[in-house]
Each structure stands twice: as C-alpha cells, then as structure tokens.
C-alpha cells in the first residue's frame, strides 16, 4: 500500500521540482543567436494547417476535434479555429499583437481557454520570442537553444534529431510548464511534423495530440 502511494507522490514531487537542464557548450560554439539554424524547427512563411486533435483532460475525460491554424511566420500572426469532427466551428480566435475572439461556444467560451489555447498554439508554431541566452547540447545529446521569454521564463528548443524535435517551456521559477514533442514528417509532404504532442504540466495538466491532416500554402 505504501509503495503504491509512494510512486505517484515521488513522480509529483519530481515534476514539481523540475529545473532547467544543464547545457554543455559545444567546442567552437553553436552558431550565434542571430543564426537559428540548429534550432530552426518552425514553419516559415504562410500556411494553413488542419490537424485532428485528441485532448486528454485532468479528470480523465477527453474528446477529439479538428484544429485549423492559419499562420504567418513573418508577421507572427495566427488565426486558430477549433471544430467538431463534423466541421462545426466552436472556437475562432485570432492573434495579431493582441487576442481577438471571433466565435466561442460553450464550453470553449471562457477567456482563460482562449488565452491558453493561443499560448499553446503559438508555442508550437512560432519561434519563441526573446533572445537565445544559451546554446549547446543536453545530456541526451540533443542540440538545444534556450530562449529567455518576455515573461521571465525559459523556452528550450531541442533538435531536430532524425526529423523529430522537442520543446520545453519553464516558468520564471524554472518549473516545467509545457513540453512539446514533434514526430518526423510523413513522406511526400512539405516537411511538417506528422504529429505533435503537447503536455501541460502542473495542477491543470492536460495533453493534446495533434495529427497533421493537410498543410496548404496560404497567400502571404
């Protein structure tokens, strides 16, 4: 009985105590912060993505939906639409220096949901804001670039390794709050990840599994 309790408690404590992993500098150094090549994993240009999204919620529930994302990497803008699997729009929001919600139906109509969703989408699809303050190798050998986020937190962009890449977001207090894992692209496509998994850590933990259905070049 004690053993059964101990493991979850230990896992919880470890997660709560997560800290920034050490970065080992590479002899000769990675390219400078202005050259993002080693950690350049985000889509460039204007694109329309359609993903299926499987959500796993803290209460053990979950649902599947469709996510439409239109983005411009140059303008750092995005329009994000959540639809039922039948194609009915339940959320439609836009970010262009500020968040504008065009449509939000229950249960997707809380301001927290809109802000959180947009944060997650921008984390997955855009190069982080803020300067690169460290670059090198993690203990697992991954190439990593660490950004200092405007909110005082940190974002580590890892990879790519064999077409896969990862991303971790830490709070100002160095607590892990988001992790992202992207799988290598399916063959024949424009080279975007076939699937992306985002995990939110903490008391309101959830997991989103995105599977790419189509990627269409959009007008600039």
């Amino acid at each position, binding site marked *: 009985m004690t053993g059964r309790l101990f493991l979850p408690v230990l896992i919880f404590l470890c997660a709560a105590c997560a800290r920034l992993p050490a970065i080992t500098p590479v002899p000769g150094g990675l390219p400078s912060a202005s050259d993002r090549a080693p950690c350049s994993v985000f889509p460039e240009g204007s694109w*329309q993505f*359609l993903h*299926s999204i*499987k959500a796993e919620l803290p209460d053990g*529930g*979950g*649902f*599947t939906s*469709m996510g*439409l994302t*239109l983005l411009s990497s140059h303008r750092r803008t995005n*329009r994000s*639409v959540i*639809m*039922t*699997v*039948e*194609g*009915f*729009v*339940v959320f439609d929001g836009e970010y262009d220096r500020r968040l504008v919600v065009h*449509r939000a*139906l*229950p*249960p997707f109509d809380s301001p927290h949901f809109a802000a959180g969703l947009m944060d997650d989408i921008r984390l997955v699809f855009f190069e982080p804001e803020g300067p690169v303050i460290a670059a090198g190798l993690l203990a697992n050998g991954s190439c990593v670039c660490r950004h200092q986020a405007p909110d005082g937190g940190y974002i580590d962009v890892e990879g790519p390794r064999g077409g896969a890449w990862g991303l971790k977001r830490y709070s100002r207090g160095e607590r892990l709050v988001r992790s992202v894992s992207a799988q290598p692209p399916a063959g024949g496509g424009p080279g975007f990840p076939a699937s992306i998994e985002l995990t939110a850590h903490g008391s309101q933990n959830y997991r989103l599994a995105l599977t790419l*259905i*189509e990627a*269409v*070049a*959009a*007008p600039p």
Partner: protein
Amino acid sequence: MKNYRIGDLVRTAALILSACLSIGWGGSWEELRSAAGEVQSVRAEFIQEKHMKILARPLVSSGVFYYRSPASLRWEYRAPLRNILLMDADRTERWVETAGSLVKEAGANLQAMQIVLEQVSQWLDGRFDQNPMFSARLDPGPVIVMTPREKAFTKMIQRIEVRLSDRPGVIDTVTIHETDAAFTRLVFKNVVLNPSIDESLFRQAS
C-alpha cells in the same frame, strides 16, 4: 436565455439532414407530409465542404449515411478523419479513429438525444412548419429554408437551406450557414430510398 450544448447541435444538425433526406419532394408542405410516409430508410453518400473566408481552400470531407425510421442513424465520415455517429432508439455513441482503430468517445448526451428524437418524429411526418426549434418556409426551387426560432440558437446556426432534387424523395444539397463568413455544404449522391439496412450498422461502429 436557453443554452445549447455542442453535442446537441451536432446531433440536431445530423438528424435534420437525415430527416431532410427522407422527406419527399414537392411544392407544398402537404406534398412533403404525404411523401414522408413513403420513406422508411435511406442510404446516401455525401461530400462535405467547409467554406470560410479565411481559408486558402475549403476543407473537404466525405462519407456515407444510413437512416431507418423511426430513429436509427449512422453518420459516418470516411475521410479525412474517420468518425462515426451512431444513434439507435435511446442510445447515442460517437466513435473516432485513433491510431488506426475506432475508439468510443465518452460524453454522449442521452438526454439531449431524447429531445432531438422527439423533433425527428415531427420532421419525418413532414411537419417542418411545426418544429419548435426552427421555423421553415418553402421557396421556389424547391428549397426549404429553416431559421432558428430562438435568438440564442442563431449564434450557432443562422439558417439551413435544403435544396430538393427533381427526383421525388431525394435532395441535392444542404447548406448550413453558421455565420456570414462560414458555411458548410453537403452534396448528396447515390441516394437510395428504402434500402434494406442491416441492424448492426446502427449498433456497431466497425
């Protein structure tokens, strides 16, 4: 103001479509009501186009649909994401393909389903003009235009247009206008009226 759940809306939309497919062709409510009694089951394929002003190109999906009176429905998308909505008597289920296999999604709202089924029985009788959720008018074409009676519902659906085929009992398209900038069009093909449909199709997703 009455609140509508998304699950209610999806089932309502699906059942409106099923009812539309099984009602008759005609130029008056009386003809619709008369033809309604002739149709006991329907099988049809469909192509669904999602149009939004922001899209570089429409989102297209396709599938097949089965209906049997009085209240059995299988609405199955086969591409791009396979998912199946099953309704049979007092039971409703949604199955979604995940990692290559169909997985049942929790959260089906049986109470909402009962409400919808009561409406379906009205639609199958051709009593569109007596529907508590939508007011309906019959335009030349013929086209049935349905608009929500309650303002709260117009935030979800502004109106539904059903264009009837020249072939009695068959419709060409259903267009669901969500907003001024977004609509969904379903184009039906290979519609078969009163086919024999295996009972298991309404009970098993696979």
